[in-house]
């Protein structure tokens, strides 16, 4: 299983996103985004599992999804 980081921008979105993923069985945690990205620093949700499904869940819950990338930890 791969680990991913979905960048959400704000920490509020990241916390909301973490809660959504946890409710759906993901092991998820809040992370400061790695690197500056296009618009500068921000937050995201790191998780292990199906990234497409995770993205769907977050968008459905109204969490802004800026970027998804695989991370190594």
């Amino acid at each position: 299983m791969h680990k991913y980081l979905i960048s959400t921008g704000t920490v509020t979105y990241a916390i909301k996103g973490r809660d959504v993923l946890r409710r759906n069985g993901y092991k998820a945690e809040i992370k400061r985004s790695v690197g500056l990205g296009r618009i500068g620093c921000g937050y995201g949700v790191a998780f292990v599992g199906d990234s497409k499904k995770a993205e769907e869940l977050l968008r459905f819950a109204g969490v802004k999804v800026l970027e998804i990338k695989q991370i190594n930890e």
Partner: protein
Amino acid sequence: MIYLDNAASGGKKPPEVIFSVQNALKNYSSNPGRSGHNGSINTALMVYNARKTIVDFFGADNEQNVVFTLNCTHALNYVIKGVLQENDHIVISSLEHNAVMRPVTKLQNIKNISYDMASVSEDDDITVENFKKLINKNTKMVVCTHASNVTGKILPIEKIGKLCKEKGVLFAVDAAQSAGVIPINMQKMNIDFLCLAPHKSLLAPMGVGVLISRSKLNNTVLEGGTGTESLNFEQPLEMPEMLESGTINVPAIAGVTAGIEVLKKQGINNIYKKELGLIKYLYEQLNRLENVILYTKEPKFYDSVPLISFNIKDYNSFEVAEFLNKNNIAVRAGLHCAPTAHKTIGTLNVGTIRVSVGYFNNYYEINYLINVLKKYKKLKNCIDTIQ
């Protein structure tokens, strides 16, 4: 000190609130939403939990719409200046605080907005009709207090909210005097913007206000660092960070959560019944004194928050308040920052003495107040006569 100035600020705090503030100072002093270390994230989680508690307590719909401001006035400024644009029209009530009157007046001067003032009647249906008559095609929003800080009158918010929905105008409520006193449900009451003063009946510390926004604001009043999108010099539009530039007051926010938990545990209706019972008792006692002037009918449950305004015939309200202060009783005299409300009850030139009851008050304190008042100059003679 017998503290009867709860409408200005709750003078005492429950131990649970004091503990939560101390705990925040000790364990949540990292800046939330700024850094990636555990301390920062833990503090952000605690703040998020506060947002969830507020959403649940006020029937809001989303944690992201809970904005922590400096105070209730700050929240009202965000709404009024964030919604209204050039030439817009709004309707306000005749009982508004200067937290509404001053930003509205400023926009009248610089953006040519206009406003009409709906008269608040003892009869709620007449009040709603008064609002209805003033809404026109240019009306963008209705802004009104939930409960007057001068008369205690509770406005028919649910009916006004329904009217606003029917007319397609936004509805903003100043709940400084009602939040924590009587139940508020934003969804049920069709409230778009709810502004709170947690240091009053939500039992929280001073230094934090809350804006719960269910509709979009066009403008920000304050811009700055949000911990995100640092390369973008435009203010980010994501809520709540869009309206939370700069570091928020984390210890006070912890106190808001604790205050709401105390209210939930005790039951908001139980507290209200006790508080209004005290104010009704005070009203009855004052009403028996010949030279006391009361400006409202006897307070009724769910028609009034627990405060009354009065005067002693021919005596200045400040002078009476000072006399009470010397006897260790804290009340407020004057216009209470709400001249329009005083104009409504005819006390614009004299002000009133306001007694406002809160969570910690009891019958012993009300009796003490009555006994001290009975010693006051003109009343002393009056009591002798009555007895």
